[in-house]
């Protein structure tokens, strides 16, 4: 069985192919302007040399910012879940993860199975992200791959009191003009970012077994600073940038095995609140995806989708799931008002309303 995980991030696209829980191929490419093209390109590049074709991949999970635009993916899973699952593959003991990506930074807590228990993220500001480091590397005239080493050579750290990329850039230019060395500037910025990461980690609470993932985990200068501030030695994977894609491939493997039985189960959409229980139950074994329930509902609660590349089934739309009691008066009232509703038109008797 062949499984694939593709992590389309804001800056880089990571792809992993797995066979029997072993990574057989992986690539890291730049995310281009067209997500669909990027997805195909990354997948073909990864399959090259494995002797496999796209058709040989049994199940693919997409994650990351661009996950919705992967045409061949069977399922989408958030990158937070994938990072937690991916690090669990290498270090099952890890409970706290710092994921430093191209355009955001997250602190994640997970359990022994690699399930997310809590997380906080900063995606509002470029401080502490890859974009920030790219900008600074540009100002300092250093190749991105060298900034980590450069920072380690610092003799006299320059304190920066901002993590705003725009302010830091002008501050760095001013220091350069004053003749401050590039390594001292870089170390100062790394320190400012490390403090910020520490604050993010504190919000989810830090456990001894701690890991850093994402592209920035390859930056030795930054990792050293975070280690210094957090006071713990991070457990780093062989390629920390791939963790999200590995997690996705692992999910692909698990979810593929669990799929067949799920097809025959019942799915409940809804919630319980103070006024009662509001659940729409769809019996997937009975539903044939005919779509008759869609036009009869005046509130357009239903849709038919081909979820995860399987047979078409009726679902409750995402936008109505959390406010069912506000828009739908319930089976009996609805039927009285218009003589036909979702339940009455369903020839397979697959829909049930709890109120």
């Amino acid at each position, binding site marked *: 069985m062949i499984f694939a995980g593709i992590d389309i991030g804001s800056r880089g696209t990571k792809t992993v192919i797995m066979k029997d829980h072993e990574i057989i191929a992986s690539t890291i490419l730049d995310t281009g302007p067209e997500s669909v093209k990027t997805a195909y390109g990354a997948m073909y590049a990864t399959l090259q040399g494995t002797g496999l074709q796209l058709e040989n991949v049994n199940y693919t999970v997409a994650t990351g910012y661009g996950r919705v635009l992967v045409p061949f993916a069977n399922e989408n899973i958030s990158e937070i879940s994938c990072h937690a699952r991916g690090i669990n593959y290498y270090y099952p003991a890890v409970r706290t993860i710092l994921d430093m990506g191209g355009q955001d930074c997250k602190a994640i807590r997970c359990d022994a199975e690699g399930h997310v228990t809590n997380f906080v993220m900063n995606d*509002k500001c470029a401080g502490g992200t890859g974009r920030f480091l790219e*900008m600074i590397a540009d100002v300092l005239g250093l190749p991105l791959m060298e900034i980590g080493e450069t920072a380690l050579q610092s003799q006299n750290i320059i304190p920066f009191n*901002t993590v*705003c990329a*725009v*302010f830091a850039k002008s501050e760095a230019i001013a220091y350069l*003009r004053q003749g401050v060395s590039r390594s001292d500037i870089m170390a100062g910025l790394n320190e400012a970012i490390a403090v910020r990461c520490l604050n993010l980690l504190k919000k989810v609470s830090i456990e001894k077994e701690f890991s850093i993932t994402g592209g920035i985990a390859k930056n030795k200068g930054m990792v050293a600073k975070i280690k210094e501030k957090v006071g713990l030695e991070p457990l780093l994977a062989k390629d920390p940038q791939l963790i999200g894609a590995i997690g996705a491939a692992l999910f692909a493997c698990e979810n593929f095995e669990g799929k067949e039985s799920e097809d025959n189960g019942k799915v409940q959409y809804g919630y319980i609140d103070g006024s009662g229980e509001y659940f729409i139950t769809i019996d997937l074994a009975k539903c044939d995806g005919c779509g008759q329930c869609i036009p009869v509902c005046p509130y357009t609660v239903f849709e038919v989708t081909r979820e995860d590349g399987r047979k078409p089934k009726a679902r409750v739309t995402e936008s109505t799931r959390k406010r069912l009691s506000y828009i739908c008066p319930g089976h009996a009232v609805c039927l009285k008002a218009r003589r036909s509703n979702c339940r009455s038109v369903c020839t397979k008797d697959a829909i049930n309303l709890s109120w």
Partner: protein
Amino acid sequence: MKTIGIDAGSLNIKVVVLDDNKITGYSIVPAGDDGTASAKQALENALVLQGDACKTVATGIGVKLLTFVPQQKSITTCLARGVRFLFPSVKLSIDMGAESTTVIKLNDKGRLADWANHDKCASGTGLFLQQMAKLMAMPIAEMSHLSLKAQSRPEITSTCAVFAESEVISYVHRMPPTPMPDIAAGIYYSVVSRVMSLCKRVGIEKDIAVTGGVALNTGLVTILEKEIGTKVMVPEVPQIVAALGAAIIAGENAQKGITQ
């Protein structure tokens, strides 16, 4: 009596000379790398000599560089005094500088009642606008005029100046591309929404004045007026309000006999 106010901002150093409650000279000089030298240059441009330093008050973020001025005052107090001098009826004043936005509230006597400021990051500041103008390859003044022709506006959701830049690029390259005036208006709206949240923190009360270099941006001020729901007052030279306030305080101090 002649008094001087110096406002060392993050981008420019402003000097105002006040003679018997009349502005007799002012100058605006880029701060550059050597703040002290720039300040001296600004003083020279405003046709004053350093010997008058005993009647001088300094303010602004770069106040530490102005070691030759013994008297210093906080920027909020100076802004309050300066805006009261120009517009006695003002209750709320919005100062939009290069690296920070400060909203101050004045009481009936024209003294500082409350204030809120944002100086943590570039979002909603003059530097943000400068960067956007650079991105759209036009002078700031042109962007300001262009925004007045906007038919609608795209929502720029990013707070961060760096992310907003990519968002603007995506609007430029959309098919069909979003018209330039609309993008300019969208950029201004994003700045205004930041300012509005600061205003709401201290409470909006008429009359309202807008100061600082960003106030020169007619396009932005128009949008701000629309959002705030009332006309705002903009001084002729909005950049020098804090320096003016400092000069007024210098006069008060001289009368009270304060020299330090």
